[in-house]
């Protein structure tokens, strides 16, 4: 022990730690209580924003979805929307519906991934295995349409890369039924498990005014009882044509953040069902030159990814590459909550709070 004193010890959680990810958390503990928690991101910074300035608008899509492979459609959605705004492209109605469909399937996948990792963060190995196995059902669906398992590059300015195959609806509905059947089982073994409730209830409480002050987004914000969702507040594509609720829970603790994500999966299933019923025929992409040269100007567009609002700010000087591309990623927005929530809680609550924020280091570092 350094200094020979046990009263206050500094622990460096990460980047080499089973519960850290590519991320470091410097915490000071006094006995079993955390007195200070300093998040230290940047271990997987790749300079995505700068790299994007040297790529054409279409070439940027694979680059921008790499930071968030568990939710790649959600992460490029905002980019595609902003490029469409910039280049004044009109998206066919069918493409709008297909995008909503794929974004929601991706959200279910991402939340299942979150659930699995939350299981292992709390020492529940069954919860780690079940969602990971069940996620494959959705991944197979996505692969049959978009060709790859995780990094799809499917959303393009002006629509989607290719149309959904014939009879896709008959493949999706059984998968949705399967996930719907599994959700109560997850709740029974994990989210409503007395030990889980004991570990998460009243832990890491983020009151709504603090949540707004810290500027957190996504399920973290909705878990504090704030009804904010880009899909409802600024409807894009076909989101204003489908009926869904934005689940919010007022308690603001780790349990309510977990419940928000479980409920969001149910809402996503609801959206996918409606989209499948009302998807119109027509073109899946507008014709436009493959090298886009949008006119001078700056645009901002955002989309609700699985972890929260994924926003892009793009400035064009009329070239085939963006002059400047700024990403506002939800994980980075949620980063201030680390120090705020962990201070004063127990050391054992560190993983509980960490993963209740669904922090994705690559997304924050970009």
């Amino acid at each position: 022990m350094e200094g020979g004193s046990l009263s206050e010890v500094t622990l460096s959680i990460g980047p080499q730690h089973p519960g850290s990810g590519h991320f470091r958390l410097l915490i000071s503990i006094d006995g079993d209580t955390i007195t200070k928690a300093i998040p230290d991101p940047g271990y997987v910074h790749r300079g995505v924003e700068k790299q994007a300035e040297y790529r054409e608008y279409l070439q940027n899509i694979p680059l921008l979805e790499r930071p968030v492979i568990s939710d790649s459609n959600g992460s490029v959605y905002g980019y595609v929307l902003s490029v469409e705004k910039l280049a004044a492209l009109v998206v066919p109605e069918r493409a709008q519906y297909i995008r909503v469909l794929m974004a929601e399937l991706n959200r279910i996948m991402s939340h299942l991934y979150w659930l699995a990792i939350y299981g292992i963060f709390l020492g529940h190995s069954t919860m780690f295995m079940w969602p990971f196995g069940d996620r494959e059902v959705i991944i197979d669906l996505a692969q049959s349409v978009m060709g790859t398992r995780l990094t799809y590059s499917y959303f393009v300015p002006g629509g989607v890369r290719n149309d959904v195959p014939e009879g896709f609806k008959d493949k999706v509905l059984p998968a949705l039924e399967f996930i719907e059947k599994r959700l109560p089982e997850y709740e029974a073994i994990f989210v409503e498990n007395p030990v889980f409730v004991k570990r998460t209830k009243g832990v890491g409480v983020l009151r709504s005014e603090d949540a707004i002050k810290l500027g957190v987004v996504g399920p973290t914000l909705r878990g504090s009882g704030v009804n904010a969702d880009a899909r409802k507040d600024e409807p894009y594509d076909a989101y204003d044509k489908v009926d869904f609720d934005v689940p919010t829970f007022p308690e603001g603790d780790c349990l309510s953040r977990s419940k928000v994500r479980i409920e969001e999966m149910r809402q996503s299933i609801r959206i996918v069902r409606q989209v499948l019923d009302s998807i119109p025929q027509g073109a899946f992409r507008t014709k436009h030159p493959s090298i886009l040269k949008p006119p001078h100007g700056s645009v901002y567009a955002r989309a609700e990814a699985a972890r929260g609002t994924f926003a892009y700010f793009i400035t064009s000087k009329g070239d085939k590459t963006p002059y400047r591309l700024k990403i506002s990623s939800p994980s980075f927005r949620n980063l201030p909550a680390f120090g705020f929530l962990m201070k004063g809680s127990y050391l054992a609550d560190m993983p509980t709070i960490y993963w209740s924020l669904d922090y994705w280091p690559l997304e924050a570092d970009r």
Partner: protein
Amino acid sequence: MVLFSLPEPFFTLFQILIFPGLLFALLFVMFMVWYERKLLAKMQVRVGPLYAGGLEGILQPVADFAKLLFKEIIVPKQADRMFFILAPTLMMALSVSMLALVPLSPTNAIANSNVAILMIIALLSLSPLVVIVAGWASNNKYSMIGGLRALHQMTSYAIPMSLSILGVVLMAGSFNLISIVESQKSAWYILLQPLGAIVFYLAALAELERVPFDIPEAETEIVMGWETEYSGINYGIIMTATYVKFYALAVLFTELFLGGWLGPAFVPPPIWTILKTFLVVTVMMIPRGVYPRFRIDQMLKFGWTTLLPLSLINLVLGLVVMNFLG
């Protein structure tokens, strides 16, 4: 089960080294490790070990142990070398000593001691001490926190565990495990003292650092707790010692509450003990697939406000039952 007769010193040696002693226990432990992995795999919709040994990967524990045997023994530069290397061996010694005290049948008893129960409690109380020695000697913050957590945990389960055993001892009127089992001829103590059985079961889970009480080695919090710095065969010895203790405690549960080797005579007595032990082992493994981990303060609270009163109530109820049954 007397299969053949050996002259006295050789028979004792046979009992210590082969059956029901070391070799049998280690084989059973190997089976337990494989069985646990298969059981968990079934619960988690996985396959589990599949190839080693041909039959559903039954030799996977052997392969794992052999791998650990060939790894380099790493001692951290800052560690207290002697105690760091000594701790796993001490732990193994404590676990293996328990084997001598838990008989599989009256004829398959290594030490037929009249104070067996007291010795088992003493051995169980010593093990957290070794854990804190290991945690301290590693000279690692995570190991230290893990060792302290083990000590805290011990304060919460040790007394309820002893009290739940005491209930059985009161009823049987003996500290000798053989007479305790023989006194269950009319009724198993799990029927007379269900509360005591539950308390002992939970305390045993905590003693073995099994889910949901695997707090001292909580992986995502403190890496592997007090085991963090151990690698290679040192880690293998720690794991084996834990599972030997697991086996010994399961046999103890069988003998305290499930009537040990008592059962219809078509199966020899030690086989009855082993079958019941297997059942107990299964029941002790299931929480690993069902529960997340407790927090240390919740464990302490659980120990002092739930387990302790329960074990005291069990003691009183046991006395009442004894008075009524004469």
